[in-house]
């Protein structure tokens, strides 16, 4: 029985975290975009406008829920829920610190990628259910884009998995620091099992994973429908794409899903390539920085810092690069990223056989 209570508490905690992150993320996005464009962003609500997103969410929740007359009511009502739940469930398998993971499953990575693919279904439901040309166009683009980009993302992930030899996210995290049971080698040459720190991260254990990480990062931008791959929303062409018709709490849910997706894909990237909850500080002789900064609290702190940095990069990219055209998007995916990801996978195999 206690078992289930713990589960509920963990689920509620994750939901609260996702909600708080979304509030913070929207605020950060507004401020970053404002500073990039030499503006000030929100300044009026609270100190430096910090309560702006809270005010926004209160406003959104009070709004009327409008269902278009011609909409498919069942699909329309269910879509935001499915979009959000698909992303939210992904958090279940992600490790936060040594020994701290909501669900310790040995196919964690596989599960995460399977469950966030369901988001496409929700987006298609939203587009179709709205019975609106722009919505369906956005949904179709989104489906095409997510399915396409899952291939380079998948191969980039496989190249990391081949190095790690496991799908368990907690084990992958463990291998990238001083807690590793196996030997970790910096660039495959220098044994850094005791040194740890940034040297033991996957991207430095096998340098070709740096390319795999970039491929994964680009593909994750496309999977979370972020600029420059935001053609499913494309506000200048499609009003707001698949979520044009949503109002009030449903719109809030779609927004929540978008921001939690940003956090989720960044977190997966951090776990696979950037050392998960491991500290970037190495042990240097008697100054055992890595040992000092490893632990449950430290794990959560490093995880948050790394993930938020990646989220910050996502925002930075969004406010810099213009949107890609559909053909450019597909060109990039199939002609550049996919072959490169294949090459990475090949190098991973060779690396595993001859170097490690």
């Amino acid at each position, binding site marked *: 029985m206690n078992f289930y209570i713990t589960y509920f508490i963990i689920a509620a905690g994750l939901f609260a975290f996702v909600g708080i992150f979304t509030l913070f993320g929207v605020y950060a996005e507004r401020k970053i975009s404002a*500073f990039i464009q*030499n503006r000030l962003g929100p300044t009026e609500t609270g100190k430096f406008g910090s309560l702006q997103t809270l005010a926004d969410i209160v406003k959104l929740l009070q709004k009327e829920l409008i269902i278009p007359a011609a909409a498919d009511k069942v699909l329309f009502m269910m879509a935001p829920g499915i979009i959000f739940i698909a992303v939210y469930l992904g958090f279940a398998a992600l490790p936060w610190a040594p020994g701290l993971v909501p669900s310790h499953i040995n196919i964690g990575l596989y599960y995460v990628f399977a469950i966030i693919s369901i988001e496409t279904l929700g987006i298609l439901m939203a587009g179709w259910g709205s019975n609106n040309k722009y919505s369906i166009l956005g949904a179709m683009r989104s489906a095409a884009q997510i399915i396409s980009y899952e291939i380079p993302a998948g191969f980039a992930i496989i190249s990391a998995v081949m190095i790690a030899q496991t799908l368990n996210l907690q084990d992958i995290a463990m291998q990238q620091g001083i807690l590793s049971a196996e030997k970790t080698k910096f660039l495959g040459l220098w044994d850094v099992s005791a040194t740890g720190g940034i040297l033991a991260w996957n991207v430095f254990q096998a340098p070709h994973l740096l390319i795999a990480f970039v491929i994964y990062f680009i593909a994750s931008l496309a999977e979370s429908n972020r600029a420059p791959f935001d053609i499913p929303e494309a506000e200048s062409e499609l009003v707001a794409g698949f979520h044009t018709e949503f109002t009030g709490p449903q719109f809030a849910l779609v927004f929540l899903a978008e921001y939690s997706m940003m956090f989720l894909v960044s977190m997966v990237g951090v776990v696979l390539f950037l050392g998960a909850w491991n500290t970037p500080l190495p042990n240097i002789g008697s100054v055992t920085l890595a040992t000092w900064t490893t632990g449950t609290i430290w794990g959560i702190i490093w995880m948050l810092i790394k993930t938020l940095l990646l989220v910050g990069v996502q925002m*930075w*990219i969004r406010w810099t*690069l213009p949107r890609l055209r559909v053909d450019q998007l597909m060109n990039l995916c199939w002609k550049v990223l996919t072959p490169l990801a294949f090459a990475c996978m090949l190098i991973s195999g060779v690396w595993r056989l001859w170097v490690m």
Partner: protein
Amino acid sequence: MKSKNKMIKRALNGLITAWKGLSLTIKHLFKSNSKREIVSITDDNYFKKQGNTNTIQYPKQQLPVPEVGRYQLEVEIDDCIVCDLCAKICPVNCIDIESIKATEVIGQTSDGSKKMLYAAKFDIDMAKCMYCGLCTIVCPTECIVMTNQYDRTVFELKDLTYEFSDMSPEDAAEKRILLEKQQAEKQAAKLAAMKQKESGA
């Protein structure tokens, strides 16, 4: 082979240009984000101030406008001779004047013109006004002017109708009665004179 080279070149070029853009935006992100310093447009440094944050935090900060700015209309009713020229020239009919003839010269404007009319009503509907300034040009006594006031935000549309007449309705009624009386007297005098003429002839 050639086309392959071209493609790789294009992909590389894409990455390089993307990096150029990203480095530009990150520079702006960490540039000073202090509030904009407000200087007049006549200042030599005006355009240099735009390198920083551009936003003017409006009600808290305001760009100085010259004293001779031409925004809201203002009427110095003591100087008005109620000639109605401004109402006539107004292209959008936003000036509404009702005059009452005085029984005698009421006074003088500051430039020495005689005032012969009371302004029972002198309303300017600023919601209609198109700020052409024609009324200020035709005014013979220069009593209608444009000021440098530009922010008159109101909660109700009728508040944008500015009433410049300083006469109370009772005053106006009294003056009307006086005028009627005088006209009646004049009429009577006229009639009497005509009668006298007739009887004399």
